[in-house]
C-alpha cells in the first residue's frame, strides 16, 4: 500500500534525517520526496511504500505522530488514494 507522509514544522537542522530514520526503523521505503522551506516554515511530502511494514496502519499513524511531537514536528500519514481520487479523473 502506498501512503503520503506529510511533515510540517518550524525549520531546523536534521528533520529529514530524523523522519527518514523513523521510516527505516519500520521498514518503510521512501519512493519520492518533495521538500520546501517557506518563511522559516518547513514542509515535506513523501510518497512511501508500506508493503514491508508490519505495524497496522492506525498504530503506525499514532507512532509517527508521537515521535513527531518529541521534536515539535507535525507528522501525518494518509493513504495516497485520497489525493488521487480528488485530483485525478
Amino acid at each position, binding site marked *: 500500500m502506498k501512503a503520503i507522509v506529510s511533515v510540517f514544522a518550524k525549520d531546523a537542522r536534521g528533520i529529514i534525517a530524523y523522519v527518514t530514520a523513523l521510516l527505516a526503523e519500520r521498514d518503510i521505503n521512501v519512493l519520492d520526496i518533495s521538500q520546501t522551506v517557506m518563511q522559516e516554515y518547513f514542509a515535506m511530502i513523501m510518497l512511501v511504500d508500506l508493503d514491508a511494514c508490519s505495524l497496522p496502519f*492506525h498504530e503506525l499513524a499514532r507512532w509517527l505522530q508521537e515521535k513527531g511531537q518529541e521534536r515539535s514536528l507535525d507528522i501525518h500519514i494518509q493513504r495516497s488514494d485520497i489525493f488521487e481520487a*480528488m485530483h485525478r479523473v
Partner: protein
Amino acid sequence: MSYLMNSSEILQTIQMIDQQHLDIRTVTMGISLLDCADRDITCCGEKIYEKLCRRAERLVPVCEGIEQEYGIPIVNKRISVTPISLVAAACETEDYAPLASVLDRAAETVGINFIGGFSALSQKGFTESDRRLILSIPRALTETKLVCASVNVGSTRAGINMDAVQLMGKIIRETAEIDPVGCAKLVVFCNAVEDNPFMAGAFHGVGEPECVINVGVSGPGVVANALRSCRGERIDVVSETIKRTAFKITRMGQLVAQEASARLQVPFGVVDLSLAPTPAVGDSVAEILELIGLERCGTHGTTAALALLNDAVKKGGVMASSHVGGLSGAFIPVSEDAGMIRAAEEGVLQMDKLEAMTCVCSVGLDMIAVPGDTSAETLSAIIADEAAIGMINSKTTAVRLIPAIGKDVGDRVDFGGLLGSAPVIPLHRESAAEFIQRGGRIPAPLHSLRN
C-alpha cells in the same frame, strides 16, 4: 515529482481538511426492518434490536478505520430504517413510543450518532398505523435521545394530504410543549426521498435493498475559500469555480462510500450532493452567498445566488460519483449555519425569503425557531406552503420548525452541538385557521399526469 505526487495538490487537500472544515458529513447505513413485523410489539422490538445490532455492529469501527487511514473526518455515523409505520402495522397496540425506545437503545449499543425512520408516508391518506405512529411522535421524540422522526404529507403524484398537514401542526406544538429540542428531530416532508443520508429526515425506503451505504459530503468552507480568488470576476467564473470544487469534494465522498461499502460488504447506494453547513466559523452556506456578492444573506439577490450555487454543486458533483441521490440540495438550517444566524439576528433573513429560497433548491424551512405562542394552525399553514412549493416544482421540501415555548422574537434558543442555536424569527400574525381546519386533500397538479 511523479505522476502520483504533486505536492501543491497534496497540500491543497490537507488544507481543505485542516483549515476549511472539509469532512464527510455522514455515512448512513440503511437497514430494512420489513422482516421484523410481529403482532406482539415486544417481539417486534426484540427483532428490531437484534437486527440493527447485527447489521450495524461494524459500522462505527469501520468508519473510524477509514478516518484514520485517509485522514478525513467522518463526522456522523448513522442508521436509517424502514418507516416504522410499516414495520409496526401488524402490532396490536395504540402506542409506538416503545419502538422508538428500542431504536434508541440499538443506536446507543452500536455507537452511532442518530437513527432515522420513526416515519410515516401519508401523502395520500393515513393508514391506521400511520395515525398511531404520528400520535406517538411527541412521546417518542422527548423520551429518546437519538431517534429522528419524519412524516411525508404530500407529493407531486398524490397532492397534499391536508388532514396530515393539520395534524402535524398539532404534533409539532405538542412536542415543543414537552421539550422544544424534540422538534429538532422531526421533519415534515413533501416528496420525501428514500435514500437520504441526512438527519432528521432519513429513512430507508421500501424500494431500497436489504442494507445499503449512503454518504453525505460537506464542504461549504472549501467552496467559500475557492470563491475568495474570484473577486471581481464575471458570474460564469464563479459558477465554474464552484463546479470544480464540488467535483473534488464529491470524489472524496465517492472514495469513502466505496471503501465503507467494500469493508462492510454492504452495497453502495448514493452520494448525496448537498453542501451541509455547521455552526463552526468558516463552514457556512450564507458566507458563500455573501462571497458571491451579497452584503448580507437574505437581501435581494439571495434566491438567484443560491440557485446558481446549488446548480453548480450538482453539475460538479454528478460527474464525480457513480450514483448520486438523496436530497442533493442546499441545506439552509438556520441554527446550524453561523452566517444564517447572523443574518436572521440582524433581521435581514426573514421567513418569506427563506421560503423563496426553497423554491429554487433549498430543501426546506429547516431548524427555524418561531415564537412560542405560534398556533398549531399557523404551523400547519407554513407546512402547507412548503408542501405546495414541493408539489408544484416536483422537488423535495421539508419543514423543521421549533416553537420556542415561552420565548418571542429577539430571544435565542440553544440546541447544543451540531444543532446550534437560533434566534426566534417573526411570523405573520394573521390566522390561516379556517383554511387549515377544512382538512381534505389538495389534488395533484396537472403535471403529475405524465404518462
